[in-house]
């Protein structure tokens, strides 16, 4: 019995290792930002449909992994949604391929529909703690923020300025979980990628500007963050071709259709 299992498993292992080996195609690996990963996958599929000599693989892992793996060569292209790149990225050529609007969101049951930048700052700093102070019902405000270092949070803090997040703010580490948290708590406020707004959450007008694609493109809506692709050394070969494709009209159209904003 045990001998059989042993033989069986070693055979399986062998087959697994033998099973296919490389096919002489150029291979590009992207890794990093989980926020951009699905978009990169879609772009890669489109690109491969017309360029069948290239195989593009997309991995997640977060922006830090994007920078590390572009540096170590584990990936040819790193993806990062940071506002300012850290010094680890100094040898990398950075290209902004898309932008993302950051929407400040509340529960749909909330009466409040717009806030000023100052009010947002005071709420996140803990100076305003009740919705009635900004025209809502008498209920304590639950602040939900992203984790330290996150691209969305950095851009939020950079644009609202003067943020010193209050200690008991809830922290979530992805767009999806922030959306769930806000959707399930009538008194909460948070911020997410504007592409994620749906019927479960309500985006607020900030300084009377609505978070719409038009307003973001025209520059009226200020909460915007860039998405970088990072390449070690200079852009060349298939890597350059792929990034060029993303920046082309067709690529940018896909980005816009899926809820991000074009780079230019």
């Amino acid at each position, binding site marked *: 019995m045990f001998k059989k299992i042993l033989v069986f498993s070693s055979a399986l292992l062998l087959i697994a290792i033998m099973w296919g080996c490389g096919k002489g195609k150029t291979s590009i690996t992207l890794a990093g930002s989980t926020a951009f990963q699905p978009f990169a996958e879609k772009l890669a599929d489109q690109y491969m449909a017309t360029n069948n000599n290239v195989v593009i693989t997309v991995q997640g892992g977060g922006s830090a992994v994007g920078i590390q793996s572009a540096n170590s060569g584990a990936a040819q292209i790193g993806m990062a949604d940071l506002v300012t790149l850290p010094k680890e990225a100094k040898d990398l050529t950075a290209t902004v391929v898309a932008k993302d609007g950051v929407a400040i969101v509340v529960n749909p049951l909330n009466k409040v529909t717009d806030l000023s930048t100052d009010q947002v700052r005071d709420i996140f700093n803990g100076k305003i703690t009740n919705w009635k102070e900004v025209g809502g019902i008498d209920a304590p405000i639950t602040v939900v923020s992203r984790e330290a270092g996150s691209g969305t949070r950095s851009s939020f803090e950079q644009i609202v300025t003067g943020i010193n997040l209050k200690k*008991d703010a*809830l922290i979530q*580490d992805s767009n999806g979980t922030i959306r769930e*948290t806000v959707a399930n708590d009538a008194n909460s406020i948070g911020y997410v990628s504007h592409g994620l707004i749906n019927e479960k959450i309500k985006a607020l007008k900030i300084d009377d500007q609505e978070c719409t694609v038009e307003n973001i493109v025209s520059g009226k809506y200020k909460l915007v963050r860039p998405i970088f692709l990072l390449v070690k050394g200079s852009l060349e070969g298939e890597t350059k071709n792929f990034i060029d494709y993303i920046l082309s009209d067709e690529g940018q159209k896909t980005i816009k259709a899926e809820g991000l904003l074009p780079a230019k």
Partner: protein
Amino acid sequence: MKLIGEKGVKRILMLTAFSAISALLLIALFILNEGLPFIFKYGVKDFLFSSDWNPHLGKYGIYPMIVASLWVTFGALVIGAPLGVAGAFFLTEYVPKSIMRIIKPTIELLAAIPSVVYGFIGVMVLAPLIRNNFGGPGLSLLAASIILGIMILPTVISISIDSIMAVPQSYREGSLALGATTWQTIHMVTVKASKSGIIASIILGMGRAIGETMAVIMVAGNSVNIPHSPLDSVRTLTANIALEMSYATGLHRQALFATGVVLFIGIIILNSIASVVLRKRAVKK
């Protein structure tokens, strides 16, 4: 196996044991190597006992997270261990074997549900329940303890069931024959005979509770706060590592690994306490 001979078998077994253990050792070294230098550079006292965690200002104090980790683990064990062990005894001693054979794999199924799924259930069901009934933000120490308590159930139940089943039937018969009720048999005979396995199940469950990240991140709220009530939002050591690792570079990243070192040492201390306490109680009995 005849070809290899008894000595050869022993050597092969020793080799596998050695390689398994060195793989585990490698992990331990990896964590220490990445994290220890930071702790000494930043200062042990500041790192462990300061409450100020503000990576972009270069402040790395993890005291609130140490407190939170202890509370969350404790809470998970208080919820999960009694439920699990009681369930294991009930299923083995009172429920027909044929039914248990279906229940057990189903319980083990729960070990395979991704922790993210538990996290979403926590956010969507448990947190509103807590918020509406007890107040607070909902995402809290209590929510994390409950979710973790549930997550360790499969480990505790399954391994306990096995060790209870391994108690020879003759022990039970001996006790029952002396006029003991099933319950008296359980707490005077079966518990004692299956203790080592039950302890192992709780320790492995505790390991899972301490080590769990994704679900905790989603339901604990993650504010860097020393909790004053079970309804406060907290951040555990594991949550801290996984929460910020995806954007962390440089010193920040090292600080997260240093958090891992503290966690590792914490686990060693908790396990030592557990084994000492349990051994002492065993001797008394």
